[in-house]
Every structure is written in C-alpha cells, then in structure tokens.
C-alpha cells in the first residue's frame, strides 16, 4: 500500500533572494481558525491564555511569538498558529483546521518595507506598523494577512493555491527595488 507524501505550498519556488531582501517559506506548524461562540469570548480568551500562554489578540494585533502565535484575522476569526488547539478551546469556539489552506512566507531584509510598499496598500513602515501589528489587506490582487515579526521581517499569508502568484508578485517588487541600487 502507498503512502501519502506531504508537499508545502511553495514547494520548488523558494527561497529567493534579490538584493537585500529574502523570501522564504515558513513552516509554522498547525494553523487553526478560531471563532468565538456568542457570549464565549471571555471564556475563550481565558482558555487560550491558560492552554497556550497567549492572550486573544485585539484587532490588528498578533500575540505570542514564532512557533506559538495568535493572529487576528477578522471580527470573529483568530488564527492560532503553531500548536494544535487545546481541548478547552472547543466548547467556546468554532475551530477549523486551516493548516493546509495557507501559503505562509517570511520576507525580510533591509529594504523589505520598500518591497512591500509596491504591492500592499497599507502603511507598513516601522513607525506605523510595529512588531506584533497585523493587517488583513491586499497584496496586489490577492487578499492577504501581513504581520510584522521583526524589525525587517514580515510574515505573509495568502491562499495556498496562489503561492506562485505570491512569489511572482513579490519577486517583481524585489527586482524593482534592487535595481534602484
């Protein structure tokens, strides 16, 4: 009997470095969408804190750190990234496994803000968008989740099926920035 082999969304596409900026695929572990049930927000937040050591993130914020992160995704959606959700979360939220639904990349380097300014219609400069800030927005024509994870580093998520377009669009922006010298 055969065995199922796992492939990542950016299989064969990354890593990529142009000029000062490097684009690489991230293995963030499990990804679960967590949507609190009516009236259970507080209980959920407490359960999240108790089980995973992270507060339920407020709008436009991510809590935790690499390997154990909760990213705000919308009014009723938080992405738990890293650990599998603890059993105590289930009674308080609708939980949906999204581990395979997203392309997750890290883009970092000195000119990373210039690169993202070519494709993202949100001000991502450090003075405005600090570590732990996150935005649901667009990346050229795609919906995306963008989180600052370091002084010169962002985590970007788009739908799994769009991995090639993500790499294409970012590469183009990286080349444009690098060519300016």
């Amino acid at each position: 009997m055969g065995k199922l082999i796992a492939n990542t969304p950016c299989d064969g596409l990354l890593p990529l470095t142009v000029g000062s900026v490097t684009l690489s695929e991230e293995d963030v572990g499990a990804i679960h969408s967590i949507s609190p049930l009516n009236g259970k927000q507080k209980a959920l937040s407490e359960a999240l804190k108790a089980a995973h050591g992270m507060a339920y993130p407020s709008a436009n914020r991510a809590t935790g750190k690499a390997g154990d992160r909760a990213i705000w995704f919308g009014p009723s959606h938080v992405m738990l990234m890293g650990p599998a959700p603890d059993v105590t979360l289930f009674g308080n939220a609708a939980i949906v496994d999204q581990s395979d639904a997203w392309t997750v990349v890290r883009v970092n380097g000195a000119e990373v803000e210039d690169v993202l300014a070519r494709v993202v219609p949100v001000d991502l400069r450090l003075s405005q968008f600090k570590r732990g800030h996150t935005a649901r927005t667009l990346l050229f024509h795609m919906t995306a989740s963008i989180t600052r994870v370091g002084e010169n580093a962002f985590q970007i998520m788009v739908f799994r099926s769009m991995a090639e377009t993500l790499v294409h669009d970012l590469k183009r922006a990286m080349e444009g920035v690098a060519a300016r010298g």
Partner: protein
Amino acid sequence: MRVDGKGLIDRTRSIPFVFDGVSYNGYAGDTLASALLANGVRLMGRSFKYHRPRGVLTAGSEEPNALVTVGMGAGQEPNVRATMQEIYPGLDARSQNRWPSLNFDVMGINDLAAPFLGAGFYYKTFMWPKSFWEKLYEPVIRRAAGLGALSGEDNPDKYESAYAFCDLLVIGAGPAGLMAALVAGRAGADVILVDENSRVGGRLLAETYEIDGKPGPVWVDEVLAELAVMDNVRIMTRTTVAGAYDQGTFAALERVLHHTDRRPNGAPIETYLRIVAKRSILAAGALERPIAFRDNDRPGIMTAGAVRAYLNRWGVSPGNNVTIFGNTDDIHRTARDLLDAGVHIAAVIDSRHDAPLSDDYEVLRGAQVCGSSGRKGLESITVRRPSGEDRIHTDCLAMTGGWNPSVHLTCHMNGRPVWKRDIEAFVPISGAVPGMVTAGACSGSFSTAACLRQGVEAAEAALGDLSLKAPKTAMPQAEDTPYEISQLWAVPGKGRAWLDFQNDVTVKDIKQAATENFRSVEHMKRYTTQGMATDQGKNSNVTALAILADATGRGISETGTTTFRPPYSPIAIAALGAGAEGKGFKPQRFATSHKATVARQAPLIEAGLWYRPSYFPEKAETTWRQSCDREVNMVRQAVGVCDVSTLGKIDIQGPDAGAILDFVYANMFSTLKVGRTRYGLMLREDGFVMDDGTTARLGETHYLMTTTTAAAGDVMKHLEFAHQGLRPDLDVSFTSVTEQWAQFAVAGPKSRELLNDLLDSAIDDESWPFMACGPISVLGVQGRLFRISFSGEHAYEIAVPARYGASLFDILTERAQALGGGLYGMEALNVLRIEKGFITHSEIHGRTTAYDIGMGRMVSQKKDCIGKTMSERPGLEGSGRERLVGLKPIGESRELLAGAHLYNEEAEPVRINDQGYLTSVCYSPTLETMLGLGFLADGPDRYGAIVKMVDHLRGVTTLCEVVNPVFFDPEGGRVRG
C-alpha cells in the same frame, strides 16, 4: 547659442545625442530643447492640424510644440516633450507628424487650405456619399491627425507601481514648496516633497533672484542639504503629482530612467505612485501665457519665462537678436537678464502706456506686436504703435501675457477657480481639495518673498492640523515686487493668431464658434478642440475663454472655465497598469494536482481564477473528442478520477448553523441528518437562482457547504451578509476551507473498489449509502468522504488535507488505471452531467428561476428564505417562460450547437418567432448521439414535440425532439448501485 558664464549645466561633460538623424552635443544638465537651441536648432515639430513649423514655446511640461519620439523599435516613446527630456549619451530623438521630413512636410499643404478647415468644418461636410466616410474621408483624416506613433510592438520596458503614505505632501519644490517642506520637516512631520523637474528649485533655477543675498540656486542647495539629512522628509524629483482624489489620495508618476540609457535588470522606467497624505500643500507655481497675434506661432517665438529659463538655467540664448513683448514687468526682467548675458536686444515692446522706462534699452510703450514673418523660423516682427507699423528684424521673440496659477489639482475634485481681476488670472478657492492648502504662485502670489512666506504659512497651518508644533522660522529676504498687469489677450488684426498651438486653434476659430452659438465655454472647447491637445490647454485655455467672453459680451468670471481633470500631465498606460502584463492581470490559482496535470499534457482551461484540465490525451488520440469519449466511457464502465478541489467549500459552525442554512437555501437543511449530504438551491433576493451545490452535515452544529467554482466568493459574501446584515442574532460562523482540502471525485461502477483499496477501513452500501458523508482515514491520513455524484454513477468525493493532494492524486490515478479507468477532465465531466441533465452556470446564468429549471417545488413552503417572496411574482412562474428541456437531434442534421436558438418547425427563424436557445451540448458516447440542454418556452409541456434549432452564425439547422433533460438512467439506479 550658448552663453558663457550662465547656466546650471556641467560644461565639463559634453554629451552627444541625435535629433532627426543629425548628431549634436550638449552638456550634462541640458534638456533636449535647451541643447537643440544651443545648437541653433529652432524647428522642432509640426502642429497637429495645419502641420505648421514649430519650435519650443515653453521650457516645461506644458510644451505644446516640441514633441518628439525618443528611441527606435519596440520601445520607442512618442510625444515626449523636448523641454522635459534630459539628454544622455546616445539619446536618439525624432520629430513627429511630418512626412517626409520636418523641414519639408507634404501635409504642410493643409495650412494653405486653412480657410476651409476652420472650427467644426468637418461637421458640415464629408456627408456624401454615405459610404465614403469609412472608405475615404475618415482614413485620410485619421492619417493626417495624430502626433507620434506607437511602435505597434509589445512594450519592452518595465514599469512598477507603489504606495506611499505621509503626514504632508508638498507638491512643487519652488520657493514656496521648499519653505513648506523645510518648516514641516523641522517640526518632525513625515513629509514627501515632489517636483516634476530633475532638480528642485522651481523658478529660482530660471531667474536671477537672490534670497538672503545669495543667488537663488545657492539658497536652494542649502535648503536641499538640510532636507536631505532629515529622515522624515522624502524628496522625489522627476515626479509629477497627476491627480487629486478622495480622502487625501494622490496619483503621482516618477520618471525613473527616462534621463538615462541605463536599464539595470528589473529596473522600472517609471513608477506610478498612490500617495496618501493627511495634509497637502500645493505649491505648483504658475504658467506663463502667450499673447495672441498674427502668426505668433513661428519657431523662435516663446514665452519670456522660457527665454529666461534657457538663459539662466541652461546658459542658452534662444536668439542673437531678441525682441520682448508683453504686458507685465517680466518684460524688463527678461531684458535685464539678456543684457547682462550680453545678448543683443532688438526691441522691447510693452503694451502698457505707463510702462517703466530703462536707461539700458528703448521701451516701446503702448505698442503691440501685430505680426511676424519668417519661413521656418522667426525673421521679423511687425510692431504697431499709434504712429504706425514698423517691421523689426529679430530671431527670437520673448512674450509674456501674464501668468496663470497652476490651479489644476484644486479642480480635480470639482472645485472651480475664481477670477482675480488684479492679476488677470484664475486662482484656486480654498477647500477645493479637502486637506489641501495652496501656497505661492499657484495661489496667485508671484513675488519670491510672497512665495516663501506662504510656504511657511501653509506648513504652519498643516502642522496645526496634524497637532505638531511649528518651529520658529526666520523668513528669508527676497524680492517682493508688486505684480502689475494690463489686460492683453489678443492683438487685434487680420490673419491667424494662435491660441492652442498644437491643435491649431486661432482667435478667429473662437469668434466663429461664438457666432455659431457655441457660447458656453464647454461648447467652444468641444467645437474648436481648444484645450484638447496634449497640454490640456495649459498654455491657452484662459486666453481662449477671455476671447470668448469678449465675443459673447460676458465677463470672464461669468464665462467660467472648462474642467481640469486628471492627469495633470499625461501618464503612460503601462505605468498605471503596471504589474498586470501577461499573467499578472489576475492571480493564478493552482490545484494540488496541477503539476501532474501539466505533466500529462492536459490542456488547461480557466475556471474563475483556477486552472482545470480539459482532457487527458493519450497516445494515438488526435482530437479532443477521442479523449473525451474515452474518459466518459471509462467513468460509465469502470472508474474515473477528477480533481474537484476548485469547488468552493465553506465550513459552517454554530448552534444556529441549521437556521442560517434554512434562510439562505430554498430547501430545508435543519432537518438533514448528521452524516448526510443534500443538494441545495440558493436564490438571490430577487427570486432568481444564484448558485447550487451540496451541503453535508458533519455534526450537530457543523455543516460543510459546497459552491460552484465560479460563485465561491460571491456565496461567501452572501452568507456573511445574510448573517451580519440580516440575522446577526444567529450564532454561527463561516470559514472558507476551499484551500484546506484537496478533493477528488472518484466516479464509476468500480469507484468503491478503488477506494476500498486505499481506505484504512473499508466501506459498503450500508455504511456509506448514497448521500452519506463523514470522516475516513486514507493511507493513514484523516480525510473526509462524500458519496455524491455529478455523473449519475456510483461515485464519491474524497478529501484530504491539501498537503497530501498531489500525492493522493497520483495514487488515485494509478489505482484507477489498474481498474481500467483513469483521469477525466472538464470535457468528460460536462458530457457526464449533460447526459444526466445536471445544470451548471450555463443554465443558472442569472436569468433563470427554480421554476425554469424544474426545481420550483424545492422552494420550501415551510419557511422563509432569501428570494422566496420575490420568486413568487407572477412573471417568474407563469406560462410562457423559457424552461429547461432536453433536446435530441432527429432529422438529417445531427449537429447541435450551444448558443443556437429554437423555433417551431415551420416558423421563420427570426426574432419574433424565437422560442428559446441551447445552453449546453455534447456528443454522448453513451447514447451515441448529440444531446442538448436548453430553454424552451413552456418547454416541459412540450415533451415529444419537434422544434427547429437554427444557428445563423455557423449555418446549421437541426430538427430536435423535446425531451426530459435527464437523458440517461432517469430512474437513478446507477448512482445507488
């Protein structure tokens, strides 16, 4: 003629370039226009309509005459302003709109025919005979019109777009803009300072003003040095703010590489920017206007400000023997600058009777230039004085009719400028663009001191709005000459006096338009084409409307302006559409089986943003039909595998999941048993069908909805609206899981056999009856299994997390082949579903109701749902509606065509006899005939009748029998078997 000791050019760097095949040299810092003038070249272009010989009129982006094509081949750039094009080694520019050469242009004959080509002449002629318009007149007109030419090849250059954000956008880096940026920068504001020029300074580079006792350019460099070290100030030269849009959004274009032949790999030639600014300051300066007099368009006649710019910035005198004419003190400023540079002045003609006199030159007071002569360049002018007319020999005329503040951006949001009598110009109204203030010449203040002062004041106002503290600013000392002007638009007299130089609109044209009752300024513009050339009327609109005002006996204020619209100066389509070339137009979505599909050489088709295989060709198959027939037979006889991951999948959870499904689906879902799947029909609120799909109940409070591939996004929006907008009381949440799961249809009599080979525990009819669903384990991976069918066969859809998709696809393919089956694509899928009468968006195309597709009874009467009430309108259920039927060819012709229309057998195939149309057709290898689905008036009442399919486009007429749309296995035995 190059003038020693003048100019901001680098005389140590000689730069060779080519114009019209002739090699010249200029200096670093030259524009094409300044370098050509330095080389004594005055003739640079031909006008649009009469092909009149033309030289530069201006020294800026508003240039109407000196337009050239830069480069050769695919990347040639038409309509480049020679006044803006910086020279670089190897620059190759050509003149335009002339044949065979600039010097000798055959179309110059148009000028002789000018009496017959006045305003609006073409509306009055070229009407007979009718057919000659497309065949003769129009092609001739088209060839004569136009300026430069596109290469006709794909644009080889790269372009990019970007976003920028700031507290304060300062538009224009002349004295006002520089001071504004300096003050705001010192206050710590996040500032973007843009200027369309290659260097900052504005008119300070073109004049001999001093600031704080220093030459203007020196002062500019000092300010620039201070700004350059501020982290919070970004200076962007060669950047034009082209449009003002809502909520502080601006469009801008940075010309990145036009000044060089360097093309580093991946480098954009232009960058289009959207700048979002909390506040903005417009410091765009002013544009000088020509005076209309007979033959005022000869090469050598230009604005006085341009003459000073060429002299002071580029060290070029546009003539050896210059005359100056106008109605402001700029005449004298020009004269002094020229004299200081050692240029001979032939005459100074000041239309003002009280004009100041000079010891250095004679001033002809109260005089006007009333004509010029010279074949391809100015040779002499005629001056009119009370005493009579004199001819004066001259090779350059500097004219000034006053200045028009650059109010353009303040008009982009429908603001109308107001007429200011004392400066004879339009000035912007405040608040025309929310958050924007104007400063300096663009607000009608023309002295250097006023510009500096207003720059500071504008910055202080913006800083106040931004809650930043303005630093104390010492006001630099500069000239503060009062601006005095006497009205002079056009010098009376015979002959043609040009207003719009490029479009060849003359004073006479405006007067004729008024005579013909084109008295509204918009009518005048549209009738004469005044202001519709590439300069958008920057040089001529105000003068033209003043002449119109005069001709119609109204004031200028009452006459009003035409509307300035974006862009301020033209922007390449490639820049505004950067990134969309080729496949960049829309994201590409690939299923996990994509690589394997491509490896099998399956042609791909687009489904929404996804790519899906059309069919999987095998050796010896030469047509798609052979592959398709094989794949259909394979599914009917053995087993087929098809990637169906592109269908939308929406996870619906919460105590009220059933309730919201009952609300968004026409049929009932709260009663569905856990572990079961049901077909659902979704209506729009107007009662028409929106989408369909199956929804599975995975748990008490957990459903999984599928949508069609194309409608997935719309359905998600619809669900969120139904919840947030209509039923926020329901406790439910939606999560798209389309991408989480790779899902494959396994269809055919051997589908269960195939699956049982892979599943960790085998299934049978009892554990997985038709429409069952639930979790399974496949080769050790947790997945889901649905016993649903779009083929009418015993079939399943198996889903695994997407990371395993490619791997499972390979294994399924291999197993299917081992069982005598294999992969099938969209063509076969289409045949299978047509044989079963299953619908797709070909049928539910937005104009069909549940009643039309034979599903009227699915609209549950036990509950309300979106679309139910409106679906009960009489017009949506009554007789006469075109309803779904099956069609089988029965006559001589056996061909069916989707898109063909249906008529009664004996009827003429004309519109009034139309009975319906075919939506989907296929050749059915199962039934060995073509089959069609279509809509026929009262169709289900006409089973057994004969109708005629007519396809006019492809010349096919086929008689058809009207049948039930379920052609194959109408009892549905196979799906349960």
